[in-house]
């Protein structure tokens, strides 16, 4: 299996009014295509920073980041925006749906920044909505949904451009256990059935156990990087 992400000696530090705060101290790892990886660690361990760098939302200070063989540090801002749109689907803890906007329009949003012709957008978006089991909610407004439903809309939105990688930043953090299980079930299914690479950032070992591999960060360094011995298979309310 080819590596979709390869990171060599990645360092990141923030500079604020002359004060330099190192966050990541030289990480090296690679993620093969189709893997379900969890990045774990306590607050301040640098896991969110790492996700943002891997997702082209932030730049690295030194080291090398190869995405499908391309050196990301050489890309300008516009190319990074394009890379984000084409290759990455983000899922956030707080959903980040547009308020008072229908499920369909929320899911369609990434297509506005793509070359997909307007006529095809509805059908593509509806496919993604179906994949998360929300077809009956298509025309509902985002504020009429439950937390679990909102996160499923966010997943559909992340899927709509068929990205290589799905980044999920504490996707169950704001959800009750039942909704959380559903979300994990969808992520696992996307990984196993459709071969999406999934990178999950979490601080809960219970959630991380849904992955195949767990990278533990502590103080900006990799503490452990191990496969999951007993993988949890999510068993939410089953969605076909």
């Amino acid at each position, binding site marked *: 299996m080819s590596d979709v992400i390869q990171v060599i000696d990645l360092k990141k530090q923030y500079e604020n009014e002359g004060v330099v705060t190192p966050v990541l101290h030289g990480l090296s790892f690679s993620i093969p295509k189709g893997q379900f990886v969890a990045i774990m660690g306590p607050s301040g361990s640098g896991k969110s920073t790492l996700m943002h760098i891997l997702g082209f939302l932030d730049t690295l200070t030194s080291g090398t980041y190869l995405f499908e063989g391309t050196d990301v540090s050489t890309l300008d801002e*516009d190319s990074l925006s394009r890379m984000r749109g084409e290759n990455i689907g983000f899922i956030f803890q707080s959903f*980040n749906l*547009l308020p008072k906007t229908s499920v369909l329009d929320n899911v369609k*949003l990434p297509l506005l*920044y793509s070359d997909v012709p307007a006529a095809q957008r509805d059908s593509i978006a509806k496919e993604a909505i179906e994949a998360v089991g929300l077809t009956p909610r298509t025309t509902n407004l985002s504020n009429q949904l439950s937390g679990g439903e909102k996160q499923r809309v966010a997943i559909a939105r992340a899927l709509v451009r068929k990205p290589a990688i799905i980044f999920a930043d504490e996707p169950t953090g704001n959800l009750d256990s039942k909704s959380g299980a559903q979300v994990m079930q969808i992520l696992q299914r996307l990984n196993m059935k459709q071969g999406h690479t999934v990178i999950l950032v979490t601080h809960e070992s219970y959630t991380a156990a849904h992955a195949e591999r767990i990278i533990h960060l502590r103080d900006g360094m990799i503490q452990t990087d191990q496969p999951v011995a007993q993988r949890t298979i999510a068993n939410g309310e089953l969605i076909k």
Partner: protein
Amino acid sequence: MRSADLVQSAWQSLVRTRNRSILTMLGIVIGITAVILALSIGESAQGYILSQISSFGADKLIVVNGPKTQSANESPFVQETLTKKDLETLKKQSFVQYVSAEIFQTDLVSANGINKNTNIFGTYPDEIRIMDWHVTDGLFFMDSDVESHGRVAVLGSAIADELFGAGNAVGQSVKIGTANYRIAGVLQPIGVQFFQNIDDMVFIPATTMLDAFHKKYYQYLLVKPNVPMAEATRRIEETLRDAHNIDNPTLDPTKDDFHIMTQEDAVQIVGQITGVLQILLSSIAAISLLVGGIGIMNIMYVSVTERIGEIGLRKSIGARNRDILRQFLIEATVLTIGGGLIGIVLGSLLAWITIKIINSYQLGWIYIVSVRGIIFGVTISTMIGLVFGYLPAKRASKLSPMDALRTE
């Protein structure tokens, strides 16, 4: 991002925050309404004044007391010089077809127990030939009445009806001030000319007028020449300088004790005055537009802060900085253009109502929609959107997607 998508996105955002959008627009609506109102009323006023001046006609000259500097610096100490002798001198000139004098004074007119304060107009029979007015009933007074300082009057149609009822005035007697006058005739209805309602006036011989009001000088001499205006002006100046013993070889207008006005001069003066008026009104309106623009900037800044999460999300799904910049700019511009259009409609409507009201006090006003105002309004409101929307939009586009996503 395609423009159609951009506009649609911007529109959806505005609809989502409907109340805020409406409040933001209000500033621009008021600003543009003020501009349109000011310019429309200004142009209507200008139209009214010019139509009054053109009712005077381009083929006449008016000789005014004092040098030209006197009418530029209005003062109560007016130098008066125009006499009956000047009129008679002009009358003898071959280039003069008609010449008349004018003196105006308000006084109490009474007949049949009705008293009315109205304008008394002391003049010559040539006046109605120059102005092309006609007598419908009876006759105008004659040159011999002027010579004899006769107590004879001609009434405007409205005052005649008011004092005597339709068709009964001729031959009756009317009291002006303390003296009685015989009514020789009644004029046809003429309406407002040169800012005065002719139909409410009482005409008496200019010489009688001088006696009655203890005056020595005429206010104006009205000349209709039979040569081109420029030549007539020059020759009247020569004649009057001669008559007043003024030695003015350099033709310095400040040395004369009279000056000549044509319709063209009047139009020019009015143009200057109304131009200044328009600038004044527009400046006030511009200030309200500026306030509206700052309101837009304020709201846009709040909107950027409120929508940091949305901006971060859009960036995370592939929006470039310029996509964000454009969306915020379009939102601001849609708001201001919308506000501008509403302002144009509202301003035109208010101007129309205002002109209607003015017209009920002063006849002759015509409602003019200021095309300049509309072009100005649309341009300015678009500019305000772009200018005042730019800084907040720039700020939104520069937000780091990561910071944007963190803030919730």
